[in-house]
């Protein structure tokens, strides 16, 4: 058994664009992108829920498309563009999605939140005015156990409105319930 284990000292190296910055990192070649981000680059904003590609928690954007970072090998990421939750803010300012998730309590425990934010960002990049159904389908690969998803939908809708320059004040029912 021990003989089949990879050389623990072997490393691979990649250069890629991480949140807009050219980045070089060396790591054990069997590591997933998730592990490289968290363990070798210290970016723990990307979380893991299963490490089997089932829950969507570890989603990052790879060349602007959502991918499950637990299913992508680090060595496959040479030359790509990766965006994580740490790259969403514009300097000190929150991304409109982050703002709306915060305002509506769409992040309860917050563990699944980075994955949801990135999937939603990819959705809004291709569809500035998604319907509720389109939002549901875009987010269908991400599990959240706290919110029941409803505040997440509303946050995505309001963020989309804000990004379009439309009115983005929440309905009274969103904040207080139905009278």
């Amino acid at each position, binding site marked *: 058994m*021990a003989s089949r284990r990879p050389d623990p000292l072997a490393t691979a190296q990649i250069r890629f664009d991480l949140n807009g910055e050219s980045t070089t990192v060396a790591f054990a070649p069997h590591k997933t992108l998730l592990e490289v981000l968290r363990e070798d680059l210290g970016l723990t904003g990307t979380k893991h*829920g*299963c490490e089997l590609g*089932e829950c969507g928690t570890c989603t990052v954007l790879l060349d602007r498309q959502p991918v499950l970072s637990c299913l992508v090998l680090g060595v496959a990421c040479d030359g790509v563009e990766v965006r994580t939750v740490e790259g969403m803010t514009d300097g000190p300012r929150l991304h409109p999605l982050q703002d709306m998730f*915060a305002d509506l309590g769409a992040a309860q*425990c917050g563990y699944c*939140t980075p994955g949801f934010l990135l999937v939603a960002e990819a959705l809004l990049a291709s569809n500035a005015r998604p319907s509720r159904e389109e939002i549901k389908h875009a987010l269908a690969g991400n599990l959240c156990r706290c919110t029941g998803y*409803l505040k997440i939908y509303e946050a995505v809708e309001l963020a989309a409105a804000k990004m379009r320059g439309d009115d983005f004040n929440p309905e009274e029912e969103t904040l*207080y319930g139905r009278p």
Partner: protein
Amino acid sequence: MGGRERRYRVVGSPRRKVDAVAKVTGRTLFADDIALPRMLFGKLLRSTVPHARIVRVDTAKARALDGVRAVLTGGDVPIPFGILPVSQDEHALCPDRVRFIGDSVAAVAAVSEDIATAALDLIEVTYEPLETIGTPEAALETTQPRIHDYGPAGNIHKLIDLEFGDVDAALAGADHVREDLFLYGGNTHLAMEQHAAVADWSADGKLTLWSSTQTPHYVHRALARVLELAPSRIRVIATPNGGGFGGKSDPFNHEIVAAKLAMLTGRPVKITLTREEVFYCHRGRHPTLMWVKSGVDRTGRFKGMHFRTLLDGGAYGSYGVASAYYTGALQTVTYHVDRYRFQGARVFTNKPPCGPKRGHGTPQPRFALEVHIDKLAEDLGMDPAELRLAHLQPPDSLTANHLRIGSMGLGACIRKVVDGAAWKERFRKLPDGRGIGIACSSYLSGAGLPIYWNHMPHSGVQLKLDRGGGVTVFCGSTDIGQGSDSVLAYIVAEVLGVAVEDIAVVTADTDLTPVDLGSYSSRVTLMSGNAALQAAERARDILVRHASAKLDVPAERVGLADSRLFDVENPELGMTFAEAVQTAEAGEGTIGTVGSYMPPRSPGRYRGAGVGPSPAYSYSAAIAEVEVDRTSGIVVVPRIWIAHDVGRSINPVNVLGQVEGSVYMGLGEALMEEMVYRENRNLVHKIPSMLDYKSPTTLDMCEVVTYLIEDPDREGPFGAKEVGQGPLLPVPPAVANAVYDAVGVRIDEVPITPEKVLKAIKDRDKGGYGRFGPTRFPAIPWPEPIRVPPPWEGGDGRAAEGDTVGAGGVRPSSVSTASLPVAEERQH
């Protein structure tokens, strides 16, 4: 937002949680995000057999593996532990026996996770198999081997028999009697974050443990006990939980093992469970078989109710004694019950241990009771919403089992959802395949008694007031995503008239924060909120005294708002909050206050009266709309209307989030979530993955219409009651009742899967009764009941004279079998 009452500046307004920005930017540090220099990685070797004696554990090869720094076996951590004092039946590593697949046998610390995992493969364990007990029925029938050597007999862990008035006589005198059997399947929390712990041992003899736990105080106690360290040398820090739902409420073996490995190696040790391990750690919903027989008058008033439960506890005690009591405790708090009897049994089986999950022990009987009432209403030709409204337990009353009810907003909840869902126009009137159903519920705002017997506060808060105008709140409470840190900040900001942003919150750190018992039983807003309120009022009084002297204004005229203290009759005259702190500090030294909360004493004095009392009860009513496909049995829930009596919303947008999240989890339990074990494969978990353990995705989640009922309760801070658990409870029975309305079949079993619906539909099409559910409640050697007269029969909360309180004796003559042939199901 315009027309809303603005009684308070902070309380009642929607706002961000104090940790919202950290969470949306990925900056919140969960336990597995912690990495310390020279940190080792720990792994647990888990049993591959369900029940066996451990003959030998050979760790020599693992110890010899390059990179391994320590290996532990049961002998290294021999002291047992457990969350309840009455069931200290767990070991960090099993010393001589394994009781379920997943029980921990050995542990490794290595320089990498890969090496630790490889080392586990090198540990050789020799097992001597014991008979496996797979079902509650088998547990009742198998006297040997015993999974544990305690409990009344064989594999029975706990037996309860409580009688509040002569129920048999009440049933004999009732206008209508009906009995039903129900089964609520087991399910699990499935928090998105896997449990993780990091331990650090310092050469000066101090241990620090960071852990994703809901109960740092209880973990602190367990570590002190097992590691034989003074509690003063142990610091437990609960990291923000990536979801809890009750699944992180026990002290866990990986926490103790990480600590022990850190002590042995002198290096930090992290253990993060895999998703599969989390499934096996479980502590989730007890599968519960239930029998209920009740007698009502012509209006549906409960003259007598007799309720029996049988809980499959799995392999350990966990919270199980409390869970068992909870399956009988709250039947009386929604609708008035004249006389009530509860018999409950928890048994051990060789499966992952069950424990507390959102609603702890009460969703199962609530499902049974609310479907039972739906059937009773039909028997009586009554509208089920009207029947419920006619017999509500009144506010400010005692129940048959001596629980004290304060505010009671269930009537308002029912009226809201009945109006909102156009119930009267739609119930029994929708086309075939579509239906609506109603159900209600109630839950605790905190358990009235602590886990271990003591007379100290359940929650403590300290406040530090800074010269710069900042206020720091210290409290042992643990934020598991429900927003408990924010509630502390909101309440203190409200009382002191400062901005929420001026409050710093330090929580869940046994070195820094006063004890709060933990995030369970929906206790935190009420209990830590009251402690914060008291501490803030004391701080306000100090500041007002000094400001009053300095401004030469009577103390009763000093107001606090907008970070100022001022004369309410002449608001121009005043000082900033920071100046007030400086004045007070100059006058009497450093300004700090404490607050604490102790629940009121409950009137019940009988053995078992400790489970069920709460300072306040929340109430919920829900109507579910369903569409049932007759050809596939698939149930779709497009919409749920729910009204929740929260007393007062401290932050309504977060209250809505808790209601919606509860509805979501209730929907998952109603339709799909289930822990299943392969009985022909040694009780291995059938589906220990997030793909195969079905939980609702965005495509399964229904629309939710939420009404918040604000009927302030005198025990809650600003009148607030709980919201995190109660709104889950009415969802499964509302769905079951709606399925009956849609296609005329009764699914008396949760989850309501397509297979069950289809079977019932086919049965009905063939002229059967159209029911899917259990048909038999096994014989159980119930003890002699503890008889406690209800308040209206002269009862003072004590057991009747002649009843030996606490007698655990088994009376063979009381063995009874409730058997319910399907044919009897629709005899009325």
